[in-house]
């Protein structure tokens, strides 16, 4: 019946010229300097890595159906979970929201024609591809079995796998992250349209600013660490091997100095997306704009001071542990501020149940659990029991999948009509959001219990009394997989056959909704002058007429 309605609709049209049809040769894509096209390049490549990482995840859950290592030998299983981790962390979670949604939206949201350095932006993508190619080579040539954490001395001396190629891939890929962050920082600093003051920036931009700080300050440290590790393998001499007087704990310090902030690279952009969704789909200003904005910065800064909480059980001094534990507890506060502000924003709003908002709702529930279980692990005495068990696995999947992936999907559904000018099936998108939510909980909730029982991570075989919970988890994973494959299908379908979305399908005030869908190559015909605050739905926003127009358009459907 919806399809009939589309036939009658001749008012919303695709713009005649937009970034997608501005050149159709391969070169026009591969040599593009347009941030929107680069975002699409990222969308394709990141999705490919997500699919690959997902396949590895499925293999893990299949193997763990039974207590014995029967589907895979231990040495194969070790490679599978390592590959899953490396791909998901470095090639999906870190680039997903910034490189796709951030790349596409930040210039538009601040009223700029492009990022500050378009050529460097394209270079970032190529670096990502080259780094990915190295890593893929390592995985295909024989794999890596060190875990994504590459702990020494196993990774430097004992592992007989392709650690060096994977390490070099990650090293190269790091520069993609650095350059993207650099580009965002400079763009937000210098490219804002007239009237777009810092406190009129959408929170999506604030959170990306914080993310970029972490990328620029943190990524070089992991780059040098991984490089030293690769060289140590190559030269059989170095600073991490205890046999030579080196210190394997130094590696952990350097590794987590980046990799804990990297967790915030993964989740902060998600916070930005959720802030957008909550405010826009409640059709009112966000509650406590400044608090939400600065909590992102606070998280980015404090994120650099808590790495030692990964090492409570490594024999570090009690006092160092106390400091790290204290700071870890402190960092919970800005996260709590965000959740409370989001909740308060809903109060007295006009909440629509569109698919992106559904994702935001699920995000809040799952992130809440993910964040609160983080406190379990930050409490030192309890962490000793929980560290390196499935409790940790469940916790970070609640934050990474329940948080970041749901935010990414929510954002993708939210801006899809802007990116491609077409709308997806509302029915299927809602169904799949619910499948993801159910499948996710079924997969990861039992792992909290398994963790408290003491089941260690990275086990190819586990005690038989733990089988039932593992079966639940694996069953959930298959549901989750369906929920993640569905969007790939209906979004691809919508790309070609979806109904024309119109410039502002949700009738929202952000700058991105004030240009055509898809936007023209230069984003705006003329540089906009911003005279309104973020999430300004009042009369000065000019949304009233647009709302009336859309109401008229949608009227036949309502009968």
């Amino acid at each position: 019946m919806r399809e009939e309605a589309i036939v009658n609709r001749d008012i919303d049209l695709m713009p005649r010229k937009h970034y997608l049809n501005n050149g159709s040769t391969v070169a026009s894509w591969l040599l593009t300097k347009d941030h929107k096209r680069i975002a699409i390049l990222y969308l394709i490549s990141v999705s490919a890595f997500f699919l690959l990482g997902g396949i590895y995840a499925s293999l893990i859950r299949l193997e763990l159906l039974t207590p014995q290592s029967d589907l895979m030998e231990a040495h194969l299983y070790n490679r599978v979970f390592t590959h899953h981790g490396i791909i998901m962390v470095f090639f999906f979670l870190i680039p997903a929201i910034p490189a796709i949604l951030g790349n596409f939206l930040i210039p538009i949201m601040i009223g700029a024609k492009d990022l500050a350095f378009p050529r460097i932006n394209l270079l970032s993508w190529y670096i990502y591809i080259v780094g990915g190619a190295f890593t893929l080579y390592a995985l295909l040539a024989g794999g890596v079995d060190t875990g994504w954490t590459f702990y020494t001395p196993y990774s430097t001396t004992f592992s007989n796998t392709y650690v060096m190629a994977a390490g070099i891939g990650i090293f190269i890929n790091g520069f993609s992250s650095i350059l993207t962050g650099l580009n965002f920082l400079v763009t937000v600093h210098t490219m804002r349209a007239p009237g777009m003051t810092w406190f009129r920036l959408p929170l999506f931009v604030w959170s990306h600013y914080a993310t970029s700080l972490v990328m620029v300050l943190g990524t070089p440290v992991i780059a040098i660490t991984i490089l030293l590790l690769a060289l140590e393998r190559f030269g059989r001499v170095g600073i991490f091997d205890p046999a030579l007087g080196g210190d394997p704990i130094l590696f952990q310090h350097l590794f987590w100095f980046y990799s804990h902030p990297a967790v915030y690279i993964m989740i902060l952009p998600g916070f930005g997306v959720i802030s957008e969704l909550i405010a826009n789909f409640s059709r009112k200003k966000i509650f406590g704009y400044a608090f939400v904005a600065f909590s992102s910065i606070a998280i980015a800064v404090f994120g650099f001071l808590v790495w030692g909480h990964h090492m409570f059980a490594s024999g570090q001094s009690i006092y160092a542990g106390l400091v790290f534990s204290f700071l870890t507890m402190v960092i919970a506060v800005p996260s709590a501020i965000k959740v409370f502000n989001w909740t308060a924003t809903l109060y007295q709003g006009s909440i629509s149940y569109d698919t992106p908002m559904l994702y935001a709702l699920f995000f809040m529930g799952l992130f809440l659990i993910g964040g609160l279980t983080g406190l379990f692990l930050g409490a030192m005495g309890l962490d000793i029991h929980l560290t390196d068990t499935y409790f940790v696995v469940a916790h970070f999947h609640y934050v990474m999948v329940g948080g970041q992936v749901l935010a990414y999907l929510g954002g993708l559904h939210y801006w899809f009509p802007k990116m491609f000018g077409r709308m997806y099936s509302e029915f299927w998108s809602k169904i799949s959001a619910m499948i993801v939510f159910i499948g996710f909980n079924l997969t990861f909730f039992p792992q909290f219990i398994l963790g408290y029982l003491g089941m260690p991570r990275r086990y190819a075989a586990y005690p038989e009394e733990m089988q039932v919970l593992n079966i639940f988890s694996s069953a959930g994973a298959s549901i989750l997989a369906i929920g993640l494959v569905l969007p790939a299908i209906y979004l691809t379908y919508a790309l070609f056959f979806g109904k024309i979305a119109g410039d502002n399908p949700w009738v929202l005030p952000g700058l991105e909704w004030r240009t055509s869908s898809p936007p023209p190559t230069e984003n705006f015909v003329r540089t906009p002058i911003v005279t309104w605050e973020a999430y300004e739905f009042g009369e000065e926003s000019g949304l009233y007429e647009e709302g009336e127009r859309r109401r008229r358009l949608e009227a036949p459907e309502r009968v």
Partner: protein
Amino acid sequence: MATRVEAIDTHQEHHHVPGLQHQFDDIEQQKEATTIGMWFFLVQEVMFFGGLFMAYLLYRYKYPMAFAAGSNHLDLWLGFANTLVLIASSLTMALAVWSAQTSKKPKVQAGWIVLTMIFGMVFLGVKAVEYNDKYQHHLIPFSRDFKWEPKGEELVAQQQMIERHASEAEKSLYGREQAFGDKVRMFFWIYFAMTGLHALHMVIGIGIMLWLLWTALKGRYSAEFYGPVEICGLYWHFVDIVWIFLFPLLYLLGRHFIAGGGGH
């Protein structure tokens, strides 16, 4: 459409300003963006070297004797000369920026750039001599024939002391310098990692200079547009500053250990 925004037309006269890229409204914005961009990049570089400095400090604290011994083997005078060369190159780089800012003739600008490059290459040449010296003395940490033999009369004295006290059997049995040599090897490992990374930055810098030279000769830089020269200058000064930190850490610190304390 209804919600499209008010806007100003900024498309006026863009294309007359030399070197202005399409995404920027005007040359000031472009200059600001590139400068801020370079500063953020340099902050990133600080973190990049920071990992190595961390490792250096940790192990220097842990094995001061071995690090002093390794440090003693570096050629203080070559390192000092190189420091002077780099400072001179910073000066010529600053002059290159100045000559672009004040719209000097392209040949003048190019002259300063060429001088900077020459100094840079002299630095690399001296570095190559030093590396070769380490190679001759079997001090390449990742080669199989790394061999630590103490040098200098202080160490010889220490050596004699050890020989006086340790029995022949012990000497033949345990290769007693091995463990100490491992730590010296670690010093050289860090030395090569740090100076190698620094030299790599120099090579990249010289590559950039080459491009700068070419564009300067084409007469692209003037008081109106000198951003790239300034940006390259920032990078070059940064690479110099890294050396200013490396030189005392690697060449100077710990020399007094050997010089003063014969009793170790």
